[in-house]
């Protein structure tokens, strides 16, 4: 597996594990991108219900994802109302997207 393939595999794993842990019925969209220099994985989370309680519950689920990938990536999170299109032009960034 090439280096980029490994990074893409990791990004996909983080995305899929996050989907399963949070639950698809709580999510409208999710995007994961990986900075392969710093191994920072940014998760943009669009909740079905972007309430205070849902955000807290989601973060508590994401801490489990952090534990699983702790020695592979540093996870950061952003709650958004919708995914923007900024990633459309960054084809070389390892990316996972669910919508």
């Amino acid at each position, binding site marked *: 597996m090439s280096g980029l393939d490994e990074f893409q595999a990791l990004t996909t794993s983080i995305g899929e594990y996050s989907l399963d842990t949070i639950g698809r019925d709580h999510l409208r969209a999710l995007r994961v991108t990986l900075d392969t220099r710093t191994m920072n994985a940014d998760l943009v989370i669009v909740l079905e219900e972007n309430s205070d309680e849902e955000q*807290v519950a989601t*973060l508590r689920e994401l801490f489990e994802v952090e534990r699983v990938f702790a*020695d592979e990536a540093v996870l950061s999170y952003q*709650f958004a*109302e919708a995914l923007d299109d900024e990633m459309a032009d960054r084809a070389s960034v390892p990316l996972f997207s669910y919508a």
Partner: protein
Amino acid sequence: MSDSGSLRTVDGCLKRAVSIKNTAKLLHNQGDDWFAVCYFYAAYHIVRAAIMADPIFDDPERLKAASPFLVPEDRFVTAHKGRVSKGVPRQFGVNDVVTALYGDIAAQYVRLHMASVEVRYQEGLRGIHRDSVVTDYEAIVTAYNEGRLVAS
């Protein structure tokens, strides 16, 4: 990121937290989103005070049981997030220490950090509600005052 002498003491951190919290209140009353940055940093100094005083950092075995990546030196960690480097164990930042040790308020603390990032690097508070910033800060203060920011 290194810290000055006073911010390596519990009292120094708590005094700094109070000062920043006062600024947060002023900015909140003015409707300025930078209040979120101030509330985050007030919380940051409170949790650093808790971490410094936490006896778990005197017990390497308890630390490892809490997380395989925690080390006694994390008592004085200042970076928000840790790092992953090849061939070196994962390093923790304050966010990671809070998540590992203070589950009661970890979500509130991480969300406060997220709010400060929204204001500092994006276009202001969008995904996180203004009221959540205040209640998250208050949850952390209450937990500290009730003696709950101690690893069990």
